[in-house]
């Protein structure tokens, strides 16, 4: 089962909006890398939740529990979310800087992953 079968599921709707927001933030001039990285983390987190639920899993909403559930179902996905969380901490809690170029790269890489999970910005 795929989230393409449930395009209007609550998690898929949120993932789509956050993916659009992330793409908008990196496309504008000057870019908004902090906002973009925060949104793309949530787009991927929500896309993952939508996908896990479509696959019949109901993980605890604790972020680490979702990463581990994702990794058990698709190798590399949980690890990608886990890594992206560190960037999201930089974005939201000022733990370090994020350049515009880095923001664009992170959004591009993780937008592609969202699309693989069945979430598209359109």
């Amino acid at each position: 089962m795929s989230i393409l079968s449930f395009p209007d599921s609550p998690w898929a709707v949120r993932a789509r909006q956050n993916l659009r927001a992330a793409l908008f933030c990196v496309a504008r001039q000057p870019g908004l890398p902090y906002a973009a990285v925060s949104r793309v983390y949530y787009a991927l987190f929500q896309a993952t939740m939508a996908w896990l639920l479509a696959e019949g899993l109901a993980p605890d909403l604790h972020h680490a529990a979702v990463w581990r559930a994702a990794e058990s179902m698709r190798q590399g996905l949980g690890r990608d979310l886990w890594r992206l969380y560190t960037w999201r901490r930089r974005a939201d809690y000022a733990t370090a800087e994020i350049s515009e170029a880095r923001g664009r790269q992170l959004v591009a890489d993780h937008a592609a992953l969202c699309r693989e999970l069945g979430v598209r910005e359109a």
Partner: protein
Amino acid sequence: MESQTHDILLALQRAAFPHAVAIRSGAAHELGPVLEADALDVPAGRVLEQEDALARILWQHAFGASTVLPGALDPEESRRLRAALPTGTTWYLPTAPRRSMS
């Protein structure tokens, strides 16, 4: 030294990870206690690649008493981090390659 940090150091040594890593306690409100493990002085063009390498080594040790959060910092970011590191930071330092005697 607490056991999760010890396991991380062993994993980095076994993998011969090529960059210094600063390991220290922190907190993330969604996760509770965390161990931040950042590779330092990574060339700017290789930050994501080396962060991925570090994450592959640390994933199996990521969910213990604390959640481990991996990262990689370029030289300028590393300089700022070094100036702000808390007491109790544990360091992994890569072993210099042995020079051939022949």
